């Protein structure tokens, strides 16, 4: 790749961003392996690795494949970390995509009514018993349906009276969002189910605590497929920032793509919400930090955001478990507590935009 930023020495000729990607990938593995040793109960570090080695490679003492120690590591700690990585990846990528789709740097994965749709679905499940046919996972499933349903509604609304564009999508998203929150609030207000209301509140704050390997599989698969899909779309995502007219002169009619991207994002966010509730600010802050460091080209932005998002959420989950002794902080609260100040800092450092324009 002629003329790109290059680093001297050992990695001569390799663009900096590719190098960063490799480093971040390594960081993700190291993070997972470190984070799994940290928790509320004291488990000796070597025991943690014995369990993992035994479970994955069948190496070592079979006694590590059973008992409380085994269950704590293999069924409690590890699944939630893997889930955190998958969700961090998905939310960060969706954040980048949403910001391009609505051509607005303030967009996050929840912006087009997806979050309110998910909340409405979850509220319906918890307080009105909707979706009971889906069994034990009815809350997550209804949340997913809500998210996906609302994004379909948003696309339909934005297409009324002419082709959808980024502004119409944004407005339709706001409208759908308000309607959904109103209905959620109505249900909460008229419900006389104190425990249910608490569940709704807790769910809205997000948590990895309920992670299982089955969920991990679903969330990771969707996040990875989404990541690969959007990575192949880097040219179109770049064109979205130029606007529809320039894009047509460069050979792409963005209209259909924009809606496809929205639906793929809704599926990714829906799965994240299904597994862990609402986790704010990851999809907003991670893309901005990466953009400040590496520019706006989506060829770099998509993979770098995915990896940074994953690393970030793994550590956020660790912090949730250890910050307050004896209790666990909802992760959504933590990410917002960290995310909002970082966001304000970014805003004050540079004139706002897509990191551009001085």
């Amino acid at each position, binding site marked *: 790749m002629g003329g790109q930023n290059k680093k001297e020495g050992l990695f001569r000729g390799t663009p900096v961003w590719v190098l960063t990607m490799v480093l971040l990938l390594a960081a993700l593995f190291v993070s997972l392996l470190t984070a799994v040793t940290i928790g509320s109960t004291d488990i000796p570090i070597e025991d943690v690795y014995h369990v993992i080695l035994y479970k994955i490679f069948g190496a070592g003492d079979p006694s590590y494949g059973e008992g409380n120690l085994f269950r704590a590591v293999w069924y409690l700690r590890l699944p939630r970390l893997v889930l955190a990585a998958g969700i961090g990846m998905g939310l960060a990528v969706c954040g980048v995509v949403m910001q391009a789709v609505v051509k607005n740097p303030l967009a996050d994965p929840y912006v087009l009514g997806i979050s309110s749709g998910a909340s409405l679905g979850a509220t319906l499940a918890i307080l009105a018993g909707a979706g009971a046919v889906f069994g034990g996972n009815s809350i997550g499933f209804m949340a997913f349906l809500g998210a996906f349903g609302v994004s379909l509604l948003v696309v339909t609304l934005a297409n009324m009276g002419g082709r959808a564009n980024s502004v119409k999508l944004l407005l339709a998203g706001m409208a759908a969002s308000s309607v959904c929150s109103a209905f959620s609030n109505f249900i909460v207000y008229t419900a006389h189910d104190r425990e249910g209301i608490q569940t709704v509140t807790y769910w809205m704050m997000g948590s990895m605590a309920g992670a299982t390997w089955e969920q991990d599989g679903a969330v990771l698969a969707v996040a990875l497929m989404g990541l690969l899909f959007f990575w192949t779309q880097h040219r179109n995502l770049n064109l979205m920032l130029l606007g529809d007219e320039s894009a047509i002169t460069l050979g792409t009619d963005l209209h259909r793509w924009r809606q496809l991207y929205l639906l793929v994002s809704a599926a990714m966010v829906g799965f994240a919400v299904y597994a862990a509730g609402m986790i704010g600010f990851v999809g907003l802050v991670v893309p901005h930090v990466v953009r400040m460091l590496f520019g706006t080209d989506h060829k770099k932005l998509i993979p770098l955001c995915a990896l940074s998002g994953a690393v970030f959420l793994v550590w956020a989950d660790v912090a949730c478990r250890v910050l307050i002794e004896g209790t666990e902080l909802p992760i959504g609260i933590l990410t917002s507590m960290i995310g909002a100040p970082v966001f304000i800092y970014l805003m004050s450092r540079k004139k706002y*935009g897509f990191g551009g324009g001085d």
Partner: protein
Amino acid sequence: MKIESKAVECILNGSPILKGVDLEAGEGELVGVIGPNGSGKSTLLKCIYRILQPTKGAIYLDGDLLGQYSYRESARRIAVVAQHNYYNFDFSVREVVLMGRAPHKRALDRDTAEDYSIVDEALDTVGMLKFAERSFSTLSGGEQQRVILARALAQQTPCLILDEPTNHLDIKYQLQLMDLVRGLNRTVITAVHDLNIAAMYCDRLYAVKNGKLVGCGSPRELLTPEFIRRVYEVDAQVIDDETGRLHILFHPHIWQQGVAR
């Protein structure tokens, strides 16, 4: 490649903007479209570069209907430098020009060494190669417009449409951009505001007023004082200097009233 518009009509929001315009730009010709504000120049060009659909009539490329091409296919034949190119983000200059390769790419294609050398060549042509790593948003208007021209060149199209690309540029950059375009040897259709620029660079001119063609010919044939008065409603003097170049001098109202200046 030859571009033709045949009896193009365009109705926008219920009002007819173009009322049947025929235009032809032959292989390698630099054709200017002139006319006062709101005459429909830009609408005509937008029909040609497919932002707008003609309500009636059609655009042809070498005799083939433009509408039958996909946007990808037409973007490999026609490149556009348009009026507004203010982007609020941090693409580097090279990234902006690399987007010109988009019509030649499928989703899974990588950017090859060839793409990068085409991009660098285009940047070199417009004299912006040393700015390749700079952030696009930090450039001046003239520099940005040259980068957009480089992007159009990277598309490697036989035709180029300029939709008043020199608006808001200093005279130096206006001349620089037009010099560049003149040297390209492609079929070019450009909207021009400044009649002197039109006279300097264009092979042929089409004049549009109120959505209709009101004249067509070489600058020398077309740009007469009578014609300028009829189309622009101003008095002008047209001077043919000793080297055979055309200069248009405008005579504002206050001069004719004998006001001392």
